[in-house]
């Protein structure tokens, strides 16, 4: 046997006792069985302290055994806050306790517990800031004390992925109600996905006690599981946690390293109910756990939870726990039934028949641990409960296990994501979920139903409804179960505030009963404020156990009903979900042009341009300046080619194509001739420049428009959006990815390109500046545009993307004798700057309007309307507040300012530099900058303030800097 607390093998437990697994906790070696969780394996070995609490560093142990509490969070190598009661042990797993200074056993920070009275709710708001600056001293201390697990800065990034699922009906919760619901829906023909967070189907049937012996639950489980497994249209996910219920039935389900995203026609939530704790002094000592936790330890993991037990219960379920304990060798000292006059039920009769001592009308007022021992060793009980509580203990009972059976609340997180409310039912003293709107249904304990027959009946009813929602033919509606006969509801206020405190309402945040009452006394009576001020429910367990007693305590303090207080908003996720599970394999591909590998072969240094990679220059980073200079020289004096595939390409076709162009762009296009290109400038409704490019008209009804690399998607969207209103007869298609693009520029461009053109005459007469045509280039069909962005004779070739390499190779081959050279984005930036051409987004910002950027010429004066016209006119009338100008430096030896450096006049900032470069061609520094409107005349002196306060003198010069007569591009 592995561990002194291990029970003999049970037929349905989750262990493989053939397989022994060694692991370590706090540096000490232990053994467990395959199938053990960390918490169960340690419990089997008599180790009950798992962590230290958030505020007082109190030792904490098993509470729920269901991954629902913070007490069981432990530290693994590279993984903080791991639920020890869900995570399985693995060979060699190294586990540490969390949130301790020193060791888990001896945590000196636990001394803070003695100062609890000095730490009222919201204590950090009330102190630590006097005198001025004091918080800077206290804050690091507070930060170090806060937090739970430790981050490993070198933790590896594991593989995680995503899958999509589709179903007619998704059932969350594989307990009796969930399985019955799945079967009913499947019977009607629905495709069903059944999601169970446990290791196997069954839910509470795996460990719960629904009758005087467990056979009823075990038999039902076998029967339901067998039928589910035999149903071909039910897909079962086990170990899978549905984390949220998003709009339109969108379910994120975590299963191991996979995030399933399930879209379903209808949903059945059968997530059961959460057992609640009972509040008394020291109710957090290890050895004090939920009754259901003890049952899970016994039936799932074969661990005896203690030797001498006391059960405190508010309902009949405590008697079931009692029977489970005594059948598995645990002595039950007494059942403390908080009810004055508990009604008889089969479970209580059976327990009484076994001579179990039942003390009714009493409650636990305090638990104690022996000195030096961090485990419960005795409890004190007193008469009465709640407001009628007597404080003097009438009796002490020795024990090493206290099972708390404080009743159940619906595990309604998912339902509340979908907008359901939780209301308090005075009659049954229970919180109930308000009915939902189809197609979201609730079934089973979450629906307030208990008892095996009622659970399955409720499941069948929900399954029937869900199938009907999905349009399946269904039989007669199954009957809904009648009210619960077992009386398992809490009828009491299981809260016994103790004058000395440490009666925990919220284990995550170490909040005692008085903290809630004092928060209310401080005036924070709204439940959301109560939560935010006291932090109740803000820890990892998100108020699963603290919400109900908080509402009860606040209602008591204010003398109002529980519904008047209400609950705080439930927010996703219902359970923890890791960053990596959410991220998966992030799909954010880099786009490469057709010629990408040719650039790499040439040794290009690549840069990001929007989603694309483009060659910045051809050569290593170390030779950047030389490469850029030589590339510019090649274009100015000879010939170069640049990959412009990333430019957006948009087809605008239809009888209204010219009218559409007229409205969407500022220029005029109705009179544009076929076979000609024209500049396009797009503004938004406020008159701000958003994009530019060239429109080539190949036909009366066909424009091919380029857009800038980063903006094409927005431009395309903008076009569609507007035409949805205009209803013009045009088709707009984004063909960016369909075409590659190459620009060949330089005085020898024609000489290189002409021999490759079989059917196009490139002579200046036949194909002048801004001509456009379609033809064959090196046997490849291409669109040929004569443009001049860099200010030299140049042609832009747009060809099918799959011909990109071939065209690139053909041009390089044809230009070999001319010493053709590829050039990158950096050289192009310098070349266009010399020519005074602006780059949208660099020389303009989100507000620049055409007149400020000197683009007034690109506005059609006679047009009735275009996007942004009204705004541009209003702004033009008001006069500009800044102007984009060209400048050069007064001192020829001065280094160029950087883009972003500011232009100042006295104390005022009047503008900033948008582009600047040392031009080899011009032998000086040239740049573009915004200046005050009265500074735009050439010859005006400017003061540029550069990094470190360096002042640079500059002078406004007319644009363009290079070839002002435009002779070269029109060669």
């Amino acid at each position, binding site marked *: 046997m592995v561990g002194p607390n291990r029970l003999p093998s049970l037929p349905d437990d989750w262990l493989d006792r053939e397989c022994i697994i060694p692991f370590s906790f706090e540096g000490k070696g232990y053994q467990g069985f395959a199938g053990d969780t960390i918490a169960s394996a340690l419990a089997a070995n008599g180790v009950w302290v798992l962590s230290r609490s958030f505020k007082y560093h109190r030792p904490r142990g098993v509470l729920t055994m269901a991954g629902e509490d913070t007490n069981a969070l432990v530290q693994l190598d590279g993984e903080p806050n791991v639920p020890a009661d869900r995570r399985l042990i693995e060979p060699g797993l190294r586990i540490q306790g969390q949130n301790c200074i020193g060791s888990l056993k001896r945590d000196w920070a636990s001394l803070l517990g003695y100062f609890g009275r000095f730490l009222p709710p919201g204590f950090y708001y009330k102190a630590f800031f006097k005198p001025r600056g004091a918080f800077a001293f206290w*804050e690091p201390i507070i930060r170090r004390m806060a937090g739970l697990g430790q981050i490993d800065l070198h933790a590896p990034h594991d593989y995680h992925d995503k899958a999509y699922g589709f179903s007619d009906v998704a059932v969350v919760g594989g307990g009796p109600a969930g399985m019955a619901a799945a079967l009913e829906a499947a019977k009607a023909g629905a495709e069903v996905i059944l999601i169970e967070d446990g290791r196997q189907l069954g839910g509470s049937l795996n460990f719960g006690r629904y009758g005087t012996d467990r056979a009823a639950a075990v038999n039902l489980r076998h029967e339901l599981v067998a039928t589910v497994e035999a149903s071909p249209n039910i897909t079962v996910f086990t170990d899978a946690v549905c984390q949220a219920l998003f709009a339109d039935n969108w379910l994120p389900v975590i299963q191991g390293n996979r995030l399933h995203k399930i879209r379903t026609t209808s949903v059945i939530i059968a997530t059961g109910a959460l057992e609640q704790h009972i509040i008394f002094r020291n109710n957090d000592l290890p050895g004090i756990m939920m009754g259901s936790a003890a049952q899970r330890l016994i039936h799932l993991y074969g661990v005896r939870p203690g030797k001498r037990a006391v059960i405190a219960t508010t309902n009949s379920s405590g008697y079931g726990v009692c029977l489970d304990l005594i059948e598995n060798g645990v002595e039950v000292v007494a059942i403390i039934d908080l009810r004055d006059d508990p009604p008889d039920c089969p479970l209580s009769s059976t327990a009484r028949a076994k001579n179990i001592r039942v003390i009714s009308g009493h409650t636990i007022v305090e638990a104690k641990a022996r000195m030096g021992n961090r485990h419960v060793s005795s409890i004190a009980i007193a008469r009465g409960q709640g407001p009628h509580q007597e404080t003097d203990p009438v009796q002490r009972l020795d024990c090493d296990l206290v099972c708390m059976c404080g009743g159940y609340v619906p595990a309604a997180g998912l339902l509340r994501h979908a907008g359901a409310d939780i209301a308090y039912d005075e009659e049954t003293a229970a919180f109930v979920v308000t009915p939902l709107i189809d197609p979201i249904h609730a079934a089973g304990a979450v629906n307030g139903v208990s008892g095996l027959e009622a659970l399955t009946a409720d499941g069948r009813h929900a399954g029937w409804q869900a199938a009907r929602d999905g349009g399946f033919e269904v039989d007669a509606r199954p009957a809904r179960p009648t009210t619960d006969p077992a009386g398992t509801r809490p009828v009491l206020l299981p809260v016994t505030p103790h004058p000395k405190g440490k009666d925990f309402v919220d284990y995550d945040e170490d909040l005692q009963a008085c903290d809630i009452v004092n928060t209310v006394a401080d005036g924070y009576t709204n439940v959301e404020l109560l939560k935010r001020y006291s932090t109740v429910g803000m820890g990892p367990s998100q108020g699963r156990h603290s919400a109900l007693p908080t509402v009860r305590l606040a209602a008591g303090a204010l003398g109002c009903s529980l519904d008047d207080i209400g609950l705080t908003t439930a927010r996703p996720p219902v359970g923890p979900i890791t960053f990596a599970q959410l991220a998966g394999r992030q799909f954010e591909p880099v786009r490469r042009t057709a010629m990408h590998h040719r650039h790499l072969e040439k040794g290009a240094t690549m840069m990001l341009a929007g989603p694309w990679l483009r060659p910045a220059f051809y050569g290593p980073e170390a030779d950047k300046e030389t490469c850029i200079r030589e590339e510019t020289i090649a274009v100015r004096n000879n010939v170069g080619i640049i990959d412009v595939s990333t430019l957006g390409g948009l087809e605008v076709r239809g009888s209204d194509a010219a009218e559409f162009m007229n409205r969407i762009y500022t220029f005029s296009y109705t009179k544009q001739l076929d076979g000609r290109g024209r500049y396009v400038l797009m503004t938004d409704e406020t008159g701000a420049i958003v994009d530019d490019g060239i429109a080539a008209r190949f036909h009366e009804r066909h424009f091919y428009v380029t857009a800038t690399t980063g903006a094409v998607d927005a431009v395309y969207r903008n076009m569609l959006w507007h035409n949805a209103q205009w209803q013009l007869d045009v088709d707009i298609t984004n063909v960016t990815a369909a075409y590659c693009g190459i620009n060949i520029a330089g005085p020898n461009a024609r000489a290189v390109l002409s021999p490759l053109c079989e059917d196009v005459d490139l002579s200046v007469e036949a194909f002048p500046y801004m001509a456009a045509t379609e033809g064959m280039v090196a046997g490849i069909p291409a669109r040929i545009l004569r443009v001049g962005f860099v200010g030299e004779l140049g042609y832009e070739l747009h060809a099918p993307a799959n011909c990109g390499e071939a065209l690139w190779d053909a041009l390089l081959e044809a230009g070999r004798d001319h010493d053709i050279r590829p050039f990158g984005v950096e050289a192009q930036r310098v070349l266009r700057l010399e020519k005074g051409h602006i780059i949208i987004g660099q020389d303009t910002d989100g507000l620049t309007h055409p007149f400020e950027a000197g683009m007034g010429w690109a506005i059609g004066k006679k047009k009735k309307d275009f996007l942004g016209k009204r705004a541009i006119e209003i702004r033009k009338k008001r006069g500009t507040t800044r102007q984009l100008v060209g400048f050069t430096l007064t001192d020829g030896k001065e280094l160029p300012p950087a883009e972003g450096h500011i232009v100042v006049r006295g104390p005022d900032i009047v503008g900033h530099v948008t582009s600047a470069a040392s031009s080899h061609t011009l032998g000086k520094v040239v740049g573009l900058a915004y200046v005050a409107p009265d500074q735009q005349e050439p010859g005006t002196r400017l003061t540029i303030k550069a990094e470190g306060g360096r002042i640079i003198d500059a002078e406004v010069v007319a644009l363009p800097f290079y070839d002002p007569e435009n002779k070269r591009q029109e060669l």
Partner: protein
Amino acid sequence: MPFGLIKYGLSSRYPVIRKFPARPELKPRYDVVIIGAGGHGLATAYYLAKHHNITNVAVVDKGYVGGGNTARNTAIIRSNYLTPDGVKFYDASLRLFKDLSHELDFNIMYSERGHLTLAHTDAALRTSRWRAEVNKHLGIDSEVVSPEEIARIEPTLNLSPNVRYPILGALHHRPGAIARHDAVAWGYAMGAAERGVEIHPDTEVTDILVEGGAATGVETTRGTVRCGCVVQAVAGSSSLVAGMAGFKLPIRSMPLQACVSQPLKPFLDTIVVSGSLHVYISQSSRGELVMGGATDPYQLYSTRSTLDFTEGLMGHVLELFPFLGNVRVMRQWAGIADMTPDFAPIMGESPVRNYYLDAGWGTWGFKATPACGTYMADMVATGRTPDMIAPFALERFQRFDQFGERGAASVGH
């Protein structure tokens, strides 16, 4: 043990030293009605009482105190804006924030962490440099830093060049801070109430009473209230409430989502923001990672959460901090951001006389709380627009005379 806590430990009964104001009866008339009991509305009320001795003031809200965007934002405070007007305003706010714990006698946990705006493209680097130069010229601590310097400032950031969006540099703003957002609202609420202001949660305004072009009162779910003037401070519902007063605002309301992780021991000191990756992240004094991104790409008044928000955000967070894969998200939520066309707020007069606007706070409202309250109070008290907020007037949109903050605002909370 700080002195402020000793009396709690030594009293036999819990000493309520300062009580959060309870809701009084609604009077039929006030000098000033402020719609919205968030940080801005409460700060305005506080400064009206403190600086101008105007205390016959009611702050009304449809929900609980500080429950709107004040409760939902991620509490980042900075002044490294792009325009001189923006820088001056937010710097005034930051200075007020620094001293706010003393001003309100309530620890708002102002924590100066330093703020890094990462640049992943040369375009972002250009904007960073522009912002830094404007900031420095106006005396704000702001500097463009290289990857090597980033490694020193925030050594946990992944500076590898072999990622989808390598970090090329950053704008470093040392005064960047976080604070406890709820505490700001509560501190102002208590300070205002102690000076005689009435705070009315769960009192929804259903109509604005306008007579002869001037606001004269409001209809609420608890009755009609007459007043000398109205201040609207309802981030997330600005267009709806302005509609009740009979005018339109150039605002589009979009959801802005955020989430927190489970508490962890401190490892991240700096506030890290990446515009390209649409991420901002800081670690609260409780140890939670507080994270957010860009607004949702469509207009909506619902504060529902979505899966694609956390999926996208976490992919990007892991690019910056690959070791966080096993950390767990604890809670996600949403607020509504009132986006103006120029990413700058609207403060000042409205087309209705005696009806003052405090709107269009998009994703940048929290950091403006004390300054906005101060100047709105000045405006209400004097009837004149203070110079500091004159550039933020509503009428700028009629002139297409927009504010130039767009470049600096994307995910810059």
